[in-house]
């Protein structure tokens, strides 16, 4: 027993250093604000004005030094409508992204695990292959496809030049010469779905693949048609994978920032963008941390709710009824 504990030391050190300490720092920054160090104006002997600090020292110029003071003023600022609206928009976009990923990802995982499907490993690798590239590169590629001067618009333009009927039809429909695909909410969702889809497919695939094939055969032997055996066996058994997939898509989607800047052209800022601004241009680490805490609480609440659903589902019971 003692041996096992010794083995855990590196992990505990790691966790303290890279999880507990940063978290504590965010909490500390979040509940404090910078205030100028307290000082009082005093008239100096030579007739000029000086500043007396708390410890009694007197300086000529007003001290610039700041002191972190515990204050809830950033929490008050956080619940202003501007920031709540941003949080709501982030949640909305994350939910839509997760749903689309689920609707696309589940069938893909199902097809890949189908017994008639040849070489699923290869296809899975092809699906994951783009993930070897940095996500910024992938997002930039989408931008060069969808831009006003991008590949898609160029194709449409050359089609219009080649087929006059197509051109006049589009003109009648009121379609601009250059269609604006980027710089709106839909473009942000597209960028996020593309970036996160494989995080949905992988866990679902792994779980479905592990389902005992005998169960499906038994279901068929007992007279269940494929739809019924899917609903009574595959679906309940794949729920842990679905839950994991949802978590793995939803959590990064709520906190994302660069994709919204690039695909949305800065017109669809998410809460992550605003947090990034606090640590960058606005250099207000305190408010940035307060907003981070808000997002963490929201994510935590979401995970809690999801964990609750997870417990309620008992696939084994379902199968027994079958």
């Amino acid at each position: 027993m003692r041996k096992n504990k010794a083995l855990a030391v590196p992990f505990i050190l790691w966790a303290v250093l890279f999880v507990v300490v940063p978290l504590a720092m965010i909490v500390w920054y979040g509940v404090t604000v910078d205030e100028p160090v307290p000082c009082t104006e005093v008239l100096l002997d030579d007739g000029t004005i000086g500043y007396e600090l708390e410890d009694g020292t007197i300086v000529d110029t007003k001290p610039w030094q700041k002191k972190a003071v515990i204050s809830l003023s950033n929490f008050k600022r956080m619940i202003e409508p501007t920031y709540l609206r941003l949080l709501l928009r982030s949640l909305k976009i994350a939910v839509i992204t997760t749903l689309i990923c689920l609707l696309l990802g589940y069938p893909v995982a199902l097809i890949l695990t189908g017994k008639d499907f040849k070489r699923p490993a290869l296809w899975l690798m092809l699906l994951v292959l783009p993930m070897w590239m940095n996500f910024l590169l992938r997002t930039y590629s989408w931008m060069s496809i969808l831009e006003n001067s991008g590949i898609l618009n160029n194709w449409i333009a050359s089609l219009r030049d080649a087929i006059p009927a197509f051109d006049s039809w589009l003109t009648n429909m009121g379609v601009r010469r250059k269609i604006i695909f980027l710089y709106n909410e839909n473009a942000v969702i597209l960028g996020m779905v593309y970036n996160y889809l494989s995080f949905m497919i992988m866990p679902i695939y792994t779980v479905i693949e592990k389902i005992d094939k005998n169960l499906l055969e038994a279901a068929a032997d007992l007279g269940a048609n494929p739809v019924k055996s899917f609903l009574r066996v595959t679906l309940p058994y794949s729920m842990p994978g679905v839950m994991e997939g949802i978590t793995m898509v939803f959590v990064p989607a709520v906190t994302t920032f660069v994709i919204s800047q690039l695909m949305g052209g800065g017109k669809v800022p998410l809460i992550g963008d605003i947090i990034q601004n606090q640590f960058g241009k606005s250099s207000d680490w305190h408010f940035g941390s307060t907003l981070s805490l808000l997002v963490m609480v929201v994510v935590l609440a979401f995970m809690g709710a999801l964990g609750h659903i997870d417990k309620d589902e008992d696939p084994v019971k379902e199968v027994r009824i079958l």
Partner: protein
Amino acid sequence: MKKKWLAVLGIVLVIAVAFLSGGEEAAIEESEEGEDYIAYVTMPENPVPMTGETISVYNWGDYIDPDVIDVFEAETGIKVIYETFETNEDMYAKIAMGGSSYDVIVPSEYMIERMIREELLQKVNWDHIPNVKNIDPRFMNEAYDPEAAYSVPYTWGTMGILYNTKTVLEKPTGWNVLLSEEYAMDMFMLNSPRDTLGIALVMNGFDLNSTNPEELRIAQDMLIKQKPIVLAYVVDEVKDKMISGEASVAMVWSGDATYCMSESDELDYVLPPEGSNIFYDSMCIPKNARNVAGAEKFIDFMCRADVAAMNYQYVGYAIPNLAAIELMGAEEYNASPVNNPPQEALDNCQVFRYLGDEQRIYDQVWTEVISAF
């Protein structure tokens, strides 16, 4: 077994192609740079052996000709440890935390003002930097360093309008072009609180550094009203997008404008007469520098006419070094609207001041603008 080999072969091919195409691009870039490149400075034939002395220089990314560093090392025997930063705030955080020591840093003007106030910089000993005589006095004694005691200007630039001459037939006469319905969904604004709100303040006749909530609210209302005709609020992407003709008009920093104009003949730059922001990046010595003598040597070296000229060819930002401009040919240098904006417009330009806590208003107002529906 055979299939495995095929897969491996495929991967090797993909990697090989990736490397080959990468190499090709690099080669093209090099030859492009060599086109009208003049070697103002050459490596000394008998380089001074390394003395073991080092200086550490902390500068913006891609903001110095690497050859310049090599020449400095060969001429002085001092090794340069060169590091780069992305934003003034990153640089500030590193210096203020006190964890690392640099001998030369290159902050922008408002950050210099802050660092002077917070006693993070030391005064420059001008006796050790004789080449400061090359620097245009017009660029010294600015509000951020009123006695020219702490900083040596390295580059300067302005915020202006980059426009596509193919679609914008008449040269814009002022910032008002950014409100013109003619360029609806055809213009880029910067996603940057100080820069964009600053211009909006100027457009309404207010001070670039105003912290008056009422004035900022007017600027905010104007930008929210303008939002439906803005194609996007961009950051660094603006360069590639303007080169590819994504939009007709954009507000850009003059350094980026120089780059875009070198890549596309269709683009031109104008500094609006009603006023704008002028910025400086200047060399400074932090208070906790280890090798002040080496830092002074480096700064003096960078102020040398031939070195500044060589560096200008690489960096592309306007320089305050009169001797270097003369060396390169003032006529050619001044032909660029970026290097030589109309005096009237330049007179109306202001530097950003460090606003301290007042900065928070800008963040709030800017968040309102970009999150407006």
